């Protein structure tokens, strides 16, 4: 059977690539510390020696659109081109080509359907910065095959928060029952409090530092019950109008498991939003 060797939850900040590669006057004052933190975070994945990456993210109206919007979608393709014109334009993100792990995609789809998740699929998926940001931060050599899983945190009506947790639990069960001698890491990215296109955007820090503090506590302590008791589709409007991306963190808490303390926790308070990085090593593996 496959082994789940690392569970990683992270914010995805599309400005990291530009900040970390800029030099001289263009280099923002927060870049060096940010790079230091990201490289330390990267080491937590490297140490787990994964063969395959299951990548959880959310399309930002790139390929998925309101005429045909899936709630949860699994990519099943031999390759995935990545990043879009408007991400090059706004963030300077490079175009990438990632390899796919089709056997695991097929397994997740078949077994996921049988486990009660009516998953959509795509055989030609161009992935966006919700998945390429963690490739850039955590695996810049881009040498591992992936299974992309997209969630709808963006276009209401959205699935309930508990559904994200349940999907996370199911993803873990599926990986651990996959009959293959492979080491699998799951990497999911979302947001803490975030406002985009609203009056609270681009402030000196995230729009709701109090929510961020609470969220980091829920995630790092694996407090799924406490989190589910407070977080609803309605409540997530209060910390910022793009905070529903926090539900991808809840999905990753589901992968990690109730009460599972993260083995690695780091945060970085930036303008606009707080960065947060978490790693769990199931079964103690690379701890």
């Amino acid at each position, binding site marked *: 059977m496959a082994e789940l060797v690392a569970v990683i939850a992270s914010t995805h900040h599309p400005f990291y690539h530009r900040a970390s590669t800029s030099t001289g006057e263009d280099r923002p004052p927060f870049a060096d510390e940010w790079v230091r933190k990201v490289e330390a975070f990267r080491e937590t994945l490297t140490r787990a020696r994964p063969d395959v990456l299951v990548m959880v993210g959310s399309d*930002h109206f*790139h390929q998925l659109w*309101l005429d*045909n919007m899936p709630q949860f979608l699994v990519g099943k393709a031999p390759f995935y081109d990545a990043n879009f014109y408007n991400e090059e334009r706004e963030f300077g993100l490079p175009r990438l080509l990632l390899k796919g792990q089709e056997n695991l995609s097929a397994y997740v789809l078949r077994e996921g359907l049988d486990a009660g998740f009516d998953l959509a699929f795509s055989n030609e998926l161009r992935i966006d910065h919700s998945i390429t940001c963690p490739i850039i931060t955590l695996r810049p050599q881009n040498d591992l095959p992936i299974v992309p899983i997209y969630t709808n945190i963006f276009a209401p009506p959205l699935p309930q928060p508990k559904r994200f947790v349940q999907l996370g639990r199911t993803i873990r069960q599926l990986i651990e029952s996959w009959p293959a001698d492979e080491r699998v890491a799951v990497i999911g990215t979302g947001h803490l409090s975030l406002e985009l*296109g*609203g*009056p609270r955007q681009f402030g000196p820090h995230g729009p709701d530092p109090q929510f961020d503090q609470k969220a980091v506590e829920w995630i790092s302590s694996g407090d799924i019950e406490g989190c589910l008791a407070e977080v609803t589709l309605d409540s997530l409007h209060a910390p910022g*109008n*793009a905070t529903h991306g926090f539900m991808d963190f809840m999905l990753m808490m589901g992968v990690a498991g109730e009460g599972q303390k993260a083995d690695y926790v780091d945060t970085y308070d930036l303008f606009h939003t707080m960065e947060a990085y978490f790693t769990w090593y199931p079964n103690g593996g690379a701890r």
Partner: protein
Amino acid sequence: MSTYLLNKFLFTVDRDPELVERYREDPTGTVAWWETEQANRILNCHDGESSTWLRFDDRERAALAGHDYPALFELGAHPFLTLTLFIAMFERDYDEPLGFQKEYAQRLSHFSLPYPDIAT
């Protein structure tokens, strides 16, 4: 009222570099052309199988033609789509980093929770 159609305009213009420039330079003309020629195109179907019923109401048309992003916010256009496209059009006109984004926030500062519904 068609929040969906507002979003469809923002989405299809944002992904096309030529249309981004055309909308920046000639908003009224671009909106009129788009409503006539593009609004009913189903994006994943060929032109012979377009829809027949989509059109803007007057407020929506005026908000788009006026580059009026506070009005688009009020009408429930998806804030991510509006922000992304308007950054592409207008960030270049500001000297300070994030100058446009901060002004954008300022111009929306009269909104408080709950924000206009963005469900489509």
